[in-house]
């Protein structure tokens, strides 16, 4: 059996049994939702519906309702796209990369982080689709035989690579998530009392019975999917960065973009996981499973990736001078001192300074501080994309074409709306789905549970039930 060092903090606090884990996770699903859930759901739904209304108006009128102009062809839309995709990356990093590294602490957070990934990628996918203006011809991005002189999509274009990357990422994450959910749905199915719930969870659980052979396959499938998802997640954000890096726009034409974007994605994704989980663990009474140690581990990831991002900012700045290309140099001087200086310095403060505070142990173990920093980081990462996209193109080669971007209320409405829809999905997930990977958490109870870990009669510890 897997053994852990005695000095390592337990991952499951308190004196839990296998049955307690089931109880703790299933109770919130089986009980009536608290009033707070309805209030939050209502708010999210209203915001989400407003966003959908804005999207409808946009589709009916055209993307002229955004604040774009001839110089600035990409602004909030692509900023939001990259922001949401970036947030999505943490889920895959937690469930796939940490699985390959055998990090047991991932088990408390992987289910909800993956749910976050899927919902975030949904939101991300909305933006390129509505940016087409004509959503109904979205299928033109696929290489389908057609009547236009057999015109194929351009496989040399990073924008097309992105279509393949994002759709592969979304569907593979969904499958990975669902395969892990099947045994847990079976647990809820076998406990369900109400006939409708029993029927629903019975369908969702695909008739899972927990046979030894099935578990054998389950573990291999999880491992291989993790192995596939790991390079996938790195490739996806690298390809997103190619959308910029392969162009010849000063400020975009940078070879460090792929690693820099991936680090930024993980950075913002972990921040979003912190924001969501710090609230969720409290609301659903999961403090024994997601506790200070988990928060601390995630803060260390935020610190490391935040430092990579900070290094990338400074490298970019240095290279723009060292390259000797005056357009490149101007793009960066303009970022820091031009009309968008406030966005640049907001980005610098939120992303470079705030993660460095995590070097202090009391700070990275403080839940309130973590919550505040997680929101600061998410704001900073939105500004990062805004700075990269808008400040690089708002002053191009011809000064006569220089321009500014002012968001219209539709720009704002669509963005805020996606946050609303995201929370609608996440709240539904928290209400009806097992938010903890039950079958995985149970496997670490004896090796990392507080009451078993350093017990003298290790192994056959009798449960109190």
């Amino acid at each position: 059996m897997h053994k852990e060092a005695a000095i390592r903090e337990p991952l499951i606090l308190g004196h839990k049994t296998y049955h307690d884990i089931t109880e703790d996770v299933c109770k919130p699903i089986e009980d009536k939702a608290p009033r707070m859930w309805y209030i939050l759901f209502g708010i999210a739904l209203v915001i989400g519906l407003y966003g959908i209304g804005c999207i409808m108006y946009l589709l009916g009128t055209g993307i002229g309702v955004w604040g774009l102009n001839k110089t600035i062809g990409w602004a909030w839309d692509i900023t939001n796209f990259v922001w949401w995709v970036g947030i999505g990356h943490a889920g895959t990093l937690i469930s796939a990369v940490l699985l390959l590294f055998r990090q047991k602490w991932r088990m408390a957070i992987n289910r909800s982080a993956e749910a976050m990934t899927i919902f975030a990628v949904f939101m991300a996918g909305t933006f390129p689709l509505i940016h087409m203006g004509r959503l109904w011809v979205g299928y033109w991005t696929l290489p389908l035989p057609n009547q236009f002189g057999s015109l194929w999509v351009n496989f040399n274009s990073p924008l097309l690579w992105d279509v393949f990357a994002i759709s592969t990422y979304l569907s593979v994450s969904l499958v990975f998530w669902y395969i892990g959910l099947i045994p847990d749905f079976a647990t809820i199915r076998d406990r369900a009392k109400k006939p409708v719930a029993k029927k629903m969870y019975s369908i969702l659980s695909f008739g899972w019975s927990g046979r030894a052979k099935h578990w054998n396959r389950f573990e291999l499938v999880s491992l291989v999917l993790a192995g596939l998802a790991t390079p996938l997640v790195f490739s996806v954000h690298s390809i997103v960065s190619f959308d910029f890096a392969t162009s010849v726009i000063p400020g975009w034409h940078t070879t460090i973009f792929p690693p820099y974007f991936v680090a930024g994605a993980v950075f913002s994704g972990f921040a979003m996981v912190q924001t969501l989980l710090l609230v969720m663990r409290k609301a659903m009474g999961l403090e024994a499973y997601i506790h200070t140690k988990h928060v601390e581990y995630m803060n260390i990831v935020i610190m490391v990736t935040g430092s990579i991002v900070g290094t990338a900012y400074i490298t970019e700045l240095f290279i723009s001078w060292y390259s000797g290309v005056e357009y490149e140099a101007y793009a960066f001087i303009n970022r820091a001192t031009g009309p968008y200086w406030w966005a640049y310095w907001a980005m610098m403060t939120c992303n470079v300074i705030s993660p460095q505070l995590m070097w202090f142990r009391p700070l990275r173990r403080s839940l309130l501080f973590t919550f505040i920093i997680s929101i600061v980081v998410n704001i900073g990462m939105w500004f990062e994309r805004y700075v990269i996209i808008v400040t690089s193109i708002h002053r191009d080669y011809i000064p006569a074409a220089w321009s500014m971007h002012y968001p219209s209320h539709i720009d704002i409405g669509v963005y805020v709306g996606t946050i609303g829809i995201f929370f609608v999905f996440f709240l539904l997930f928290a209400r009806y789905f097992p938010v903890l990977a039950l079958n995985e958490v149970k496997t670490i109870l004896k090796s990392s549970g507080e009451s078993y870990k350093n017990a003298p009669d290790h192994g056959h510890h009798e449960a109190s039930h």
Partner: protein
Amino acid sequence: MADKVLYAMYDDDEVLKDGAKKLVSKGVKINEVFSPFPIHGIDPIIGVKNTRLGIMAFIYGLTGTMLATIGMRYFMIVDWPMNIGGKPNFSYLENMLSFIPITFEFTVLCAAHGMAITYLLRNKTLPGIPAQNPDPRTTDDKFVIEIRMSENDNFSSSDMENMLKDTGLIELDQKDI
């Protein structure tokens, strides 16, 4: 022929594993084990072979690589060679660099989905299929060994029951099929 099935229930995975070891050493054939989570090390004891789904994933992945290569060569080189900035597409090899991202993505797509579909079909777990665990508690905190008497001709039912009772079980159930 009517078959008698015995279900021995345990409340600890380690106890079940030790019990299974004891039973198998006496020559008992264990038909199935039901558990709420994977019991590590149970497979060799009860004779469950390692799955070959990994090999299938590799084959599906290879199929994806091939399809992507064949497809992009046809679209970009054969059917409609594009001339971008005076750099026409002459051969697949010369243009391959820009085809690598999609080749990779498509490989992953085929490997992951192919394996997931095979996994669900081989397990016979699909929407609408009824659950087959003998007791609803086996998805919570109980572990069950299933023994079929037809597979254990050299033991009488009472012998078998006595042997099972020595393994620290908490409940013994039987069913006639």
